[in-house]
C-alpha cells in the first residue's frame, strides 16, 4: 500500500523518522499525514491513511484517531483552495460574519462546504492566533489579515 505515497512524500517522512527512536515510528504520524494530505488533493482518503499506517507500522485505527482529532486534516474531498476562515471571538467582533457572507457569495460555496465547480472549500475555524489583525482567514500556508470585502475580492482574483 505504500505506493499510494509518492517517492517524495516517503523520502520526506524518512527524514522525520530519523529524528525519532527506531521503534517509535508513530512519532512521525502528524507530519506524515500532512504530507499525504498535500499529495492527495488536500484530503485524506481511507486508503491514504492506511498507507500511512502501513508505512509507520501503526494500527490503522490509530491513524484514523489522529486524523479525525485534528481539524487540519480533511477526511472528505475539498476544493482546490481551502479557505479556513476564523469566526472566533476577536474576528467575530471585527465582523467576520460579513467576510463569511461575502466569501459565500463570491465562491458559491456554503460555509463548511465546497463550491460546485470544486474550486473552493470554506471552512469555519477557531482562533488562528492572528487576533491583532482580525478578521482573518488562511489559504494554504498563508494568513490573510485585516480583511474587508474588497480585500477578499482582490485575494480571490489572485487565485487560479
Amino acid at each position: 500500500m505504500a505506493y499510494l505515497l509518492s517517492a517524495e512524500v516517503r523520502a520526506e517522512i524518512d527524514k522525520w523518522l530519523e529524528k525519532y527512536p527506531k521503534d517509535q515510528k508513530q512519532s512521525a504520524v502528524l507530519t506524515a499525514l500532512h504530507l499525504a494530505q498535500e499529495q492527495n488533493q488536500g484530503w485524506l482518503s481511507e486508503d491514504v491513511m492506511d498507507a500511512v499506517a502501513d508505512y509507520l507500522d501503526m494500527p490503522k485505527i490509530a491513524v484514523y484517531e489522529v486524523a479525525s482529532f485534528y481539524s487540519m486534516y480533511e477526511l472528505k474531498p475539498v476544493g482546490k483552495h481551502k479557505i479556513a476562515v476564523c469566526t472566533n471571538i476577536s474576528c467575530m467582533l471585527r465582523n467576520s460574519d460579513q467576510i463569511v457572507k461575502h466569501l459565500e457569495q463570491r465562491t458559491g460555496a456554503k460555509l463548511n462546504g465546497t463550491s460546485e465547480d470544486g474550486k473552493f472549500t470554506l471552512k469555519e475555524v477557531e482562533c488562528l492566533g492572528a487576533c491583532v489583525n482580525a478578521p482573518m482567514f488562511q489559504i494554504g500556508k498563508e494568513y490573510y489579515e485585516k480583511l474587508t470585502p474588497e480585500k477578499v475580492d482582490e485575494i480571490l482574483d489572485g487565485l487560479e
Partner: protein
Amino acid sequence: MDKIDIEIDGKMVQVDPGSMIIEAADEAGIVIPRFCYHKKLSIAANCRMCLVDVEKARKPLPACATPVTSGMIVRTKSQLAREAQKSVMEFLLINHPLDCPICDQGGECELQDVAMGYGDDVSRFTEGKRSVKDKDIGPLVSTDMTRCIHCTRCIRFGEEVAGLRELGATGRGEHMEVGTYVAKSVKSELSGNIIDLCPVGALTSKPFRFSARAWELQQRNSIAVHDCVGSNTQLHIRRNEVMRVVPQENEAINETWLSDRDRFSYVGLNSDDRLTQPMIRQKDQWIEVDWPTAFVAMKDALTACIEQHGPEQVAAIASPNSTVEEFYLLQKVLRGLGSNNVDHRLRQKNFDDQDEVGAYPGLECNLSELAHMDSILLLGSNIHHEQPILGHRVRKAARRGAQVLALNPLKFNYHFPLAAESVVPPAELCDRLAGIAKALMETQQAPEDAKKLLANTVVSETDKVMAQHLLQAERAIILLGTLAQHHSHAATIRRLSRLICQMANVDLGWLTDGANAQGAWLAGAIPHRGPANSSLTAQGVTAHDAFEKALKAYVLMNVEPNLDCADGRQARHALTSADMVIALSTFKDPLLMEMAHILLPITPYSETAGTYVNVMGEWQTARAVVTPQGEARPGWKVLRVMGNMFNLPGFEYTSQSSVLAELKEQLDNASSSGGLQWVCPESLPNADKGYLERITQWPLYRVDPLVRRSQPLQETTLQDAVGIYMHSDQAAKLNLKAGDVAHIEQQGTATLNVFIDERVPLGSVYVPAGYLETADLSGGSIVVRRDK
C-alpha cells in the same frame, strides 16, 4: 519490598508501594466507584468516577491513578469525595440516553449501579443529547454506541490483550466516537471479552441479545470444553436452558478472560439436531426406541460380532472432549470385552513414540510461567486459534521481551513480533528441527546416536539463530501445536524436540487436541496403556490403525468421523463396511446416521457432571447445570449400563464421583512415570516428497461437533473459509488464479475455490479440514487442476 501503611476511611491497610489507591481499597474491601479502571488493563484515568479525598491534596484525586505513599490518609466518602463523585456522575449521564428499559445491560450495568449510588434523581440537563450511529462489528458483539461513556476499556483491551488494535476513539470532544471508523468486523478470537469489559450497554452479546434479563438467570460454574486450557466459566441458565456463557475468574488458568469459542459455543447446545431418543437402524429405516431396547440391541450385536470375529475386531473411538469418567468407563467396557483398541487421538497419524510419553502429553510448566519465559519456540502452532488463552500468555511473554520463534508450515499472523521464523513445507519441518539440534551440538553435549542421525544435516542461518535464542534464554519452552502433532512424521518431530530440549535445557509443551487429552491418557483411553498408566500384556490399535484396518465393530463417542478424524475418508470407509457401529452421540449427524447402526443419545457437558484434566494436569470437575434433553443421558451412565449388560465386574457405580474416585485410587497407587525420553529415530524423513503436499488444520470454529453448530461463530470472518489456499507462484505453476474453482484429488476428490495466500510455502497447498467439502480428501500426494 516492604509494605507501607495507609489509612482509607479510617481503616489501616498495608499495601505494596507503587500500587494505586484503588487497588489498596479493593483489597481492603472498600468500594470506590469506577468505569475506566480495570485491573487487567493499563490505567487511563479518563472517566474520573473514582475521585477520592486525599489529605493534603488540594483537590480530589483519581484513586485509580494515584500511587499510595506512606502515611497517606484517604477518604472515599467524605463530603468532598461524595461531591466530586456526584458531579462526575452527572457529567457522565449528560449524553447517556438513559434507555435502561430497552437496554440489554439493564440489571447488570455498572453505570446503572453507580448511578443508583451517586446519581441524582432528576436531571438538570435540558439540552439535546448527542446520538451516535451504531456500528456493525460482526456477529458476536452488538453495539449501541450512543450509550458509550468513553471509558476506553474496549480500546485498551484490543491493544493490550487481544493484540489487535481495531477499536479506537475517533473525532474529539462532543464528536468523539468509539468504533472501528471504517465498517468492519472485529477480528479477534477474544473479542467477546469487550462485552464483559464494557461498563454500559454499548457493547452487548449479539447471540444473547433481548433473550433474557439478567435477573431471570441463574449462574452455575462450569468448565469450557474446546481447548486444553480448561477455562473456568459460568453458565447462565433460565428455565433449564443455557442462555449464555461468561468467564469465571481463575488467575491460574484464564485470568478474567474467555475465548470466543468457549463463550459462544453454547448456541450449539440447543441446536435442532440434538439426539434425544435412542435409535436403531432396521434395514434402512431409523426408528426411535426406548433405552432397554437399545441396550439389548447393542449387547446382542456386539456379542455376536465378538463371538464371530473375536474382541480385537472391536474398537472404541472417543472425542478428546469427553470427560474423564466417560473415558474411564469406555475403556473399562472395551477392555472387559477383551479389546484394547481404545483411543481418543482422532487427528494424529503417527504414534511411533507413544511408549516414550510420560503420564500424559502436556505442559512442563504452569500457565502463568508461560508468560515469564525468555524464549518460546512455536512449532507448528497457530497458537491464537488453537489455544486462544495460551496465545494471550505467549503474547504477554513477548511484551515482556521474550524472544518468540516460529517454525511452521504456514506463515501465521501472530499478534506479537517474532525473533526468528522459518516457514517450510511440512516435509521439511524435521530438517529444520534437525538443523536447530545440530547447531546446538556445536557447544552442547549430545547423545552419540543423535550425532550420527544428524551427520548429513545442513544447518541454516535461521536454525542457528533459533538455537542461540533457546540456549541463551534463562527459561525457554518449545510448544508443539496441532500442525506438529498431526504431522505424518509427528514422532520424529517430537523426538527431535525432546533432543533440543535436553541439549538446550528448555521445557516442552504439547498443546493437545480437545479439552481432555490429559484425562484420556490418565483414564486409559489409549490403546497402549491401561488406566493410571498401567502396562498391558497386549497393546491395542490406535484410532488411525483401527480405521485403516477396517475392523468389524466400532463404538464411537461424540465423533463425527467425516469431520473429526485425521483421515475422514478412511474413517468413513471403515465405518460403512463394518458390521456394527454404535454411536454415543449428542447430535443427530446425518452422515453419522449413514454409517451407524445404533445411536445412543448422550448429553453435552452442560447436562452431565464430569471431570476434565487440562494441559498442566489440573483436574476440574463440572456439574450438570441443566437436565438432559429428552432421553439423552450422561455418557458415564450409558457406559455403566453397557458394562452391566455384559455382566462385567465392577460396574456398580452410583454417581460420577464414584467413577472418578476409582480412577483416582489407581492413580494414587501408580508408580510415577518419567517424562518423554530421547529415543533416536531410525532416520530422518526425506524432505523432497517429489509431489505437491497438502497442509491441513482445523479452523478454530470447526474443531468439534458443538462449535460447528454455533451459528454466530460460523458467521465470523476469523476462520479460514473452505477452499484451497496457495502461494501466487504455486498458482501460476498450476495455471490457477484467485476465484478459480479447482478440482482436487487426494484419493478422494473435492471441488474448491482457489484462494491466493502468500502464507503457504511453495510445494504445498493448504486445504482446511473440518468442512464437509473437504471430508473426502485423504493423505498422501494431492493433484490439483482447474475445474472444467
